[in-house]
């Protein structure tokens, strides 16, 4: 009789969230390093890293609908915007011409996810009827509609070119806007936002990983790869495309609620087509359909400005001595990478990491 050589005797272990010691090891190391170094970051790097964490959350959202469920969405940035404005209106300061209710973060944070999720649900029937390029075009239309509304709904967004202030940080009625004391150590407001973002990031990451190891993630992948076979198995395309859009928008909205809080203000022109496309680029450069991919992509995209600035500084040049502006260099580098990945490594940064990992399999930590 044949044995079952590959059979895990413990399925529990097999479906665990981090199922190897290496994974646990690196997750722990990464988090510890991040937390410790946060005490030494300059304000500039704190800002970049916080942006990277929240961008990763939003990119995970896009990855749910596009990477896992295979439904292209060019409107992701618009959902980030909706989250931003839900939080700004509920948690921000109002005036005679701008709405703001200064509510607790415990109210605006969940709602910044739930409102976009509901809007995502409402538009999801489009995804059931349309596929591929057509769906892309319709979501493109949504970005334009959203941009228009954002630019003209002055009492919510402040209007284009003017903008408004973002949500204030008040939790359980305690005001954190000027930082606070942990014992005798003063935690700055920025560091506080960094920690909030980190917590959000961790939960968001666990959520994505859970989704992928659940029947929901499998149903998404089934719809993405072969929708007719998926239906013949009993997977309701309407239901799962709708849930993918809703979850994806939830992630976008939650990320959006905090992403501009550190800079303190937001202009509605921010949420244009380029912003939405950026998320697609992040997911592709990082590696679509994986858990780590969007994280790599987001880190890469958000930290490039810092790295470029660092190099310019290192070579003793200032920004005005080089023919290109640092943001132009960023775009150029990222654009070239995007093309490079599409041509040479469709699995993105994740693919490179995957190969490196296999290359170093002989290393002591490999199991």
């Amino acid at each position: 009789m044949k044995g079952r050589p590959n059979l895990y005797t413990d399925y529990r272990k097999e479906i665990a969230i981090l199922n190897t010691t290496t994974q646990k090891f690196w997750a722990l190391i990464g988090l510890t390093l991040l937390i410790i170094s946060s005490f030494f970051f300059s304000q500039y790097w704190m800002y970049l890293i916080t942006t990277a964490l929240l961008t990763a959350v939003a990119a995970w959202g896009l990855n749910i609908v596009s990477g896992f469920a295979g439904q292209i969405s060019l409107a992701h940035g618009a959902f980030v915007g909706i989250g931003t404005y839900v939080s700004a209106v509920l948690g921000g300061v109002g005036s005679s011409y701008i709405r703001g209710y200064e509510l607790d973060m415990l109210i605006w944070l969940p709602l910044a996810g739930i409102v976009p999720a509901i809007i995502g649900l409402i538009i999801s029937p489009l995804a059931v009827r349309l596929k591929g390029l057509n769906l892309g075009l319709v979501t493109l239309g949504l970005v334009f509609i959203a941009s228009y509304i954002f630019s003209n709904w002055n009492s919510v967004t402040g209007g284009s070119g003017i903008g408004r202030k973002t949500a204030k940080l008040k939790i359980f009625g305690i005001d954190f806007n000027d930082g606070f004391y942990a014992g005798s150590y003063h935690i700055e407001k920025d560091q506080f936002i960094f920690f909030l973002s980190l917590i959000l990031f961790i939960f968001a990451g666990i959520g994505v990983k859970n989704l992928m190891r659940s029947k929901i993630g499998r149903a998404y992948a089934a719809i993405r790869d072969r929708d007719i076979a998926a239906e013949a198995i009993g997977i309701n395309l309407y239901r799962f495309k709708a849930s993918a859009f809703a979850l994806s928008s939830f992630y976008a909205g939650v990320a959006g609620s905090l992403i501009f809080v550190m800079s303190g203000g937001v202009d509605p022109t921010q949420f244009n087509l380029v912003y939405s496309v950026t998320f697609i680029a992040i997911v592709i450069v990082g590696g679509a359909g994986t858990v780590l991919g969007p994280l790599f992509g987001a880190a890469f995209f958000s930290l490039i400005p810092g790295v470029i600035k660092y190099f310019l500084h290192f070579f003793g040049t200032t920004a005005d001595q080089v023919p290109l502006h640092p943001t132009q260099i960023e775009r150029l580098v990222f654009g070239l990478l995007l093309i490079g990945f599409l041509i040479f490594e469709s699995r993105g940064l994740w693919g490179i990491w995957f190969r490196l990992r296999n290359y170093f399999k002989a290393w002591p930590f490999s199991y």
Partner: protein
Amino acid sequence: MSTIVSFKDVSLNFGGVKALNNVSFDIKEGSLHAIIGPNGAGKTSIFNCISGIYKPTSGHVEFKGENIGSLRPDEIANKGVARTFQNIELFENMTVLDNILIGAHRHIDYGSISGILFGPSVREKEIEARKIAEDIIDFLEIEEYRFSYILSLPYGIQKRVELARALAMKPEIILLDEPAAGMNNEETEDIARFILDIHEELKITTVLVDHDMNMVMDIAEDVIVMDFGQKLFDGIPKDAIHDKQVIEAYLGVSTDK
């Protein structure tokens, strides 16, 4: 025995092509029913009408006495109708195990939000699903491929995995579209043995489409012969091989010389 699937004057047109032309038949619960016929006879179209991928142009299809004409494919699948495809429709970038777990979809009962939270009850349900999958892996003797990606597997094994995915649905009826196509003799014998096991051990009503008469004649209890969208014959295999129309359709010659 009661009828599980019934076609009542079903026609299916594609422009001018009559894929099915006034076809009526009953499939009895618990039977092993074969559908044979030359290329383009309408065999796959019958399956597509049962599983709701195509809707009949006229007439209707019943499942256990209920008209399923207005149901979506997933609703029909959830009534217990499983199928395989003529051209393998596996999820190629996934492992054998994941394909089978997707097959078990309808037996894993929790929603999207529970999936994201992955609490203890979800965990138990996933483990339960894994046990269903493991039983089927055992049944079809594909243990060694459990963690292999579909693309890396030989054709014959892929066909078997597709069968496994259909079985994971724990269906009441299973529709097999040319399960032995492209296989050598040994593989064909294996598949024939599995089909008999599915029918006898698991007691699943089995409908089998095939081109060639040999395997069908060996294992089927009933056979429907199709040609150009029309039903030529419906009865036991022994009678089919003596039927004038059937012989004509297959050999393209008149028998009464």
